[in-house]
């Protein structure tokens, strides 16, 4: 009996955790199918499958274009971070030289920068480059938080690869570039998937820079667009539309997380615990 009770208590705890984490999404989904006065009643189940909010978000707010902006920016950030990260990780993880520890510490230090601390300097830089209100400006500014972390995780991974592989390649006359491309890269894809995913999520979610460095609706990214959805008056937010947009952008992220949860967890712990 006591065993049964503790078992029951445990599963109740699991259920409570599930309810706590999932309920806000569930409620957002329920709300996204409501329009007009339906919004003013608290319901635990969808009343009917009413896609009006989704249609309105995509038609009136040109949400598809916003999503495309975010996809472009995030993929560009991932590509640049991974390229710079892999080359730097090769140097930091495979070669012993003076100042290596200091460099790694600097990289770690940059990842602690509050974004606001570079805001005015970054604003000036982006305007000087003529990228204000252009997506490449966001790509450049996002590197400040994706790059340190990419370098750090890839270096940890690169350091643990067997030395013999590299020695054999050197014997065969391979250049360092060949070694990275032909020897290490095929072994590193799990680390690349992990860091790429984390960089993608970070870029996809970024708000402060996107809010400050873009101006027109055509250059908005997803978080800014959702934050700026407004109704006829300030006190009359179109909650149905906001929830529809939120659900739309959450589903792909939730899918990625469900598929790659093991990779993401290993990346997070490599970035934080080992760091």
């Amino acid at each position: 009996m006591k065993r049964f009770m503790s078992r029951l208590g445990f599963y109740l705890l699991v259920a409570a955790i599930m309810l706590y984490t999932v309920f806000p999404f569930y409620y957002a989904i329920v709300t996204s199918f409501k329009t007009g006065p339906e919004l003013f009643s608290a319901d635990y189940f969808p009343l009917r499958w009413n896609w009006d909010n989704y249609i309105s978000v995509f038609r009136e707010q040109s949400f598809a274009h916003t999503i495309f902006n975010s996809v472009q920016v995030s993929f560009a950030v991932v590509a640049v971070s991974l390229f710079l990260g892999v080359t730097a990780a090769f140097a930091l993880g495979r070669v012993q030289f003076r100042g290596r520890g200091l460099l790694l510490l600097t990289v770690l230090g940059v990842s602690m920068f509050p974004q606001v601390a570079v805001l005015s300097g970054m604003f000036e830089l982006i305007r000087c480059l003529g990228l204000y209100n252009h997506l490449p400006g966001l790509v450049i500014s996002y590197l400040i938080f994706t790059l340190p972390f990419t370098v750090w995780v890839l270096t940890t991974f690169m350091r643990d690869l067997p030395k013999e592989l590299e020695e054999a390649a050197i014997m065969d006359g391979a250049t360092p570039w060949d070694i990275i491309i032909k020897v290490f890269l095929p072994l590193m894809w799990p680390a690349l998937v992990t860091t790429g995913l984390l960089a993608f999520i970070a870029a996809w979610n970024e708000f402060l820079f996107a809010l400050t460095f873009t101006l027109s609706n055509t250059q908005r990214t997803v978080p800014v667009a959702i934050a700026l959805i407004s109704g006829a008056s300030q006190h009359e937010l179109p909650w149905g539309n906001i929830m529809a947009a939120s659900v739309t952008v959450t589903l792909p992220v939730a899918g990625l997380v469900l598929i790659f949860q093991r990779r993401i967890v290993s990346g997070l712990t490599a970035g934080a615990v080992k760091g």
Partner: protein
Amino acid sequence: MNARSQLRPSLLTRQRVRTAWLFLTPMLIVLALVAGWPLARTIGFSLTDANLSDLSNARFIGFENYLVYDSGEWYGVLADGAWWNAVWNTLKFAVISVTLETLLGLIVALVLNTPFKGRGLVRAAVLIPWAIPAIVSAKMWGWMLHDQFGILNHILLSMGLIAAPLAWTASPGLALTAVIMVDVWKTTPFMALLILAALQMLPTDCYEAARIDGVHPVKVFFKVTLPLIKPALMVAVIFRLLDALRIFDLIYVLTANSKDTMSMSVYARQQLVDFQAAGYGSAASTLLFLTVALCTVLYITLGRVRFDGR
């Protein structure tokens, strides 16, 4: 082989080091461009009266943005009540939310460390709040916390816990609580997974021994588990604390520029962008940077103590 050639690195080594620097250069240039330079410029701006609409016309004014005494009054960020209010809000937010996240994260991690059916699913579900944009979670909770139509008021009212609906995000006493509530929901998973990783690296033999000796599980937790995961726990706490000190998105969207919840980042951005006061705002940014830098230095020294001490 003479002593000279033993001391000097071989040709191959020197070549490798040269290649290493070659491979590092692109990353270092980009990092200097996107981090070093903007930071230096921000600190530079903080010593000028720059305006965001025309940054080139800035005049050097020394530390006047920070603190200046003029005709019987103190001026500058450090004399601004709103700044100290923001500092106090940020500290309160950081300490309370990180404490709650650590405690809840510990519970979730202990649950996830026990094998049961559907554990993978729960672990994935727990990750989702962490992965979605802060803006989305702020909006989702903003709706749930709505003073008239929010489900939370509805639940609390029907359970008889409150007599009248609460204005979660608007009333001065509750707004920070609401922000903390959402942040705890969003970041507990991160904590839980870091703690879980530490739990899974623990040796199993001392647990076997404790089980055979019939030690109560609660005692095992406090005497064995907690001391063993403490280093990892400390790192996770400091990481989260640094993150909490720079909080912006959640507060900005959930409660806008309200004085009751304004954090240091929100204050700095308001000065910088809304009031276009690039010099003054940069001074606030620099102060935030110094606060975080101090904590980072503390973290690195603590980390070193840990590595050398054991």
